């Protein structure tokens, strides 16, 4: 029996009797981060990073029983030593380090290694077994530094403003939206409005000391308000909805790693795609796996098979593990369609 294994309700540690990011209610859940596919409602007790606690409460309800720990602070459960370490994915996102009788496992959740002003940077941990995501597990996915991406976004916003249009920028409501707002904090190009789903989480980020652009709740503006020249940050689900009508003439953009591939942007009928991801790209994924020194790698979600084969050919014991985690939500249904719903 391995220290962690995939059970019906999620990734389970028998020795410590707890789950990591369970998809069904359990007694004890250790949570990597607040995205809907990782933090599910209904468990008795949650263990979270202190940085992520506030977001988790917004997501799961204020009365949820959450124990928050500092980065690296050990928690002992029947001889199993659990500690949380920054994953660099979104505010409070953690890798879960599990140690038992000298054996170390690390479940990375979702992660990225590029610097991001909205969260503590990724910490590389040595371990025997590394559980990694592979949302973008193909060598075509290689990110450019986000400074260049933000230059593009600002140029797009400026051009739209000069044409009297509003710039509607789609990004996942938790994480991506705030990363955009942080990157544009000093843009000084015009007012910034947000969708309600984004605004709720902005509060948690600001409370956590993250500096975001000044925002106003778009739906709170009076009828007939002139939005021309402004930037609107909204979740991708708002694309094509009637909610967009209030903004008048708009240009649409989407910030996502999927935008690296031209067909993904064109299929969505968006004006612009900005390649900005909160997930690890191929070169960093390989470097991270190597850096952990792991002998065994489990690949949980995304394009798993190529990574498994790549690692196997290099002498690492790797396998694809079916999970309900999806990586970047609100992506094309196609990209998440490969996930089997089995335990």
């Amino acid at each position, binding site marked *: 029996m391995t220290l962690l294994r995939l059970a019906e309700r999620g990734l389970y540690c028998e020795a410590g009797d707890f789950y990591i990011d369970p998809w069904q209610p359990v007694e004890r859940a250790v949570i990597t981060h607040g995205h809907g596919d990782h933090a599910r409602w209904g468990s008795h007790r949650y263990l979270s990073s202190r940085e992520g606690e506030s977001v988790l409460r917004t997501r799961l309800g204020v009365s949820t029983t959450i124990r928050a720990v500092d980065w690296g602070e050990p928690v002992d459960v029947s001889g199993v030593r659990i500690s949380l370490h920054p994953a660099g994915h979104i505010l409070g996102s953690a890798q879960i380090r599990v140690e038992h009788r000298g054996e170390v496992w690390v479940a990375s959740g979702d992660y990225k290694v590029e610097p991001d002003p909205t969260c503590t940077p990724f910490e590389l941990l040595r371990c025997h077994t590394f559980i990694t995501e592979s949302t973008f597990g*193909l*060598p*075509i996915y*290689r990110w450019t530094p986000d400074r260049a991406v933000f230059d593009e976004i600002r140029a797009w916003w400026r051009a739209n403003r000069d044409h009297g249009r509003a710039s509607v920028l789609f990004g996942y409501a938790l994480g991506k939206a705030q990363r955009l707002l942080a990157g544009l904090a000093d843009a000084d190009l015009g007012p910034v409005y947000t969708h309600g789903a984004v605004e709720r989480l902005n509060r948690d980020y600001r409370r956590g000391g993250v500096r975001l652009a000044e925002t106003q709740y778009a739906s709170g503006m009076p009828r007939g308000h002139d939005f021309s020249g402004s930037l609107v940050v909204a979740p991708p689900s708002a694309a094509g909805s009637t909610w967009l009508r209030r903004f008048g003439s708009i*240009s649409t953009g989407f910030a996502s790693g999927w935008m*690296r*591939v*031209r*067909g993904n942007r*064109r*299929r969505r*009928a*968006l*004006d*612009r795609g900005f390649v900005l991801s909160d997930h690890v790209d191929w070169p960093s994924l390989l470097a991270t796996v190597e850096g952990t020194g792991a002998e065994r790698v489990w690949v949980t979600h995304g*394009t798993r*098979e*190529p990574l498994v*084969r*790549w690692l196997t050919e290099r002498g690492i014991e790797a396998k694809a593990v079916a999970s309900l985690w999806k990586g970047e939500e609100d992506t*094309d*249904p*196609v990209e998440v*369609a*490969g996930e089997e719903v089995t335990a």
Partner: protein
Amino acid sequence: MKTFARLFAAIDETMRTNEKVDAMVEYFRSAEPADAAWAVWFLSGGRPKRLIPVRRLATWAMEETQVPEWLFNECYDAVGDLAETMSLLLPDAESTTDVPLHRWIDERLLPLATKSEEAQRASIGRSWRELGGTERFIWNKLITGGFRVGVSQQLVVRALSRATGVDEGVIAHRLSGTWLPRPESFTALLAEETSDADVSRPYPFFLAYPLEDELDALGDASAWQAEWKWDGIRAQVIRRSAQTFIWSRGEELVTERFPEIAAAADFLPDGTVLDGEIMPWKEGKPLAFAQLQRRIGRKSLGGSILTDVPVVLIAYDLLELEGRDLRSAPLAERRRAMLDTIEATRSTVFVPSPVVSLSSWDDARAAYGEARERCAEGLMLKQRDSVYGVGRRKGGWWKWKVQPFTIDAVMIYAQAGHGRRASLHTDYTFAVWADGVLVPFAKAYSGLTDAEIADLDRWIRANTVEKYGPVRHVKPVHVFELGFEGIQPSPRHKSGVAVRFPRILRWRTDKKPEDADTIETLRALMA
């Protein structure tokens, strides 16, 4: 190359027609003629010949990137476009130089044709190290012969006209035929004087939109005429300076393929241009389009094909008379002149398109009812005083096609699409029942909404029975209503029939596979 890449990006990045045109206008105003000539050519759909087999290019890209073949193929599956896959995999450019577009073409692309494989490899490797981002993508598209931009010729014409002040019609005419991307051609395109030397040049075809409203909304029926809409090859027959040129609507010179029309055109006076439909025609009646396809497919027209499948030109219009451009004269006047011109040739190869005169819209409805019987695709409605426009325009002409044949069929195979639909399964094969077995009879690509395509794609991935290369054999579950224009016996198809222009009309979620139609139903449509 940088400015051309910026132009491409500007066009690619917006859904707005006006912005696409603005970007082109800006480019044409500032680009040097040698570059602009190539840009016009590419934007109008011109493609360089593929000089290197794509598989070889892919191999080189794998060598450069140290990506093994299986992983390269995984990437290709995810991207759906070879040129883009290579662009994304190759490392970022080492140095950036700004060599103009025409020099890339003249000095790097075209010379590949005569180079040894080794020299080609070196040249391509160098280009990959010098180009990054969009430029490299465009370059890969050029060397794979697959370059395409999302603008219509009409928009290119509009942009050129706005950039130079030359009339749109004049530009469109100058661009038709074999327009070569040389600097002098670009300069000539924008020249003030209109005496154009090229005797072979056709006029841009005037095309009709499908009828949108009720007939009565078109006003007084007597101001209109109806003609049969034929399903052949739309063409212009040009007689100038004692030479004959036949252009198809795809702007291909097809003079050699239709010797009987070319011979008859010798009797047209100099300075004549006829617009019409090349139709397979025997004993005063049309033959099926499949017959014409048999003829088009041949390299040489030997044997009995000329007697088996003779063709005529059903003449619709006269665009030039005694060297004069007639396009702005009213249709009734052009038609009179056309009848006189054809009459004078005494040829049976030019058949004036029969006109159904309309005293009321009921006459049009009655004619429409007879269309299928007459082997026509429907009716064309033309206003008697309409001019001959440029491209597809609304107003003076409408096409009114007969309703398609329909059949309920089961999807049995699926394959990923290309371009915008790469990595989504959008090419489907459909089958009907024959003695309890599903027999494939048609492939269709279009007709579903994006949401339906996404749903179906997910279902296909989860319900694949077997994979043969890119083709997935799926469980026979989903029934679709297919429409098609014509049906012919075909010994080449397993089902014994070939359908023309099949497309999906509806996803029949209300039907089970056993409710789908049978081969007998399909055969009955042929009668």
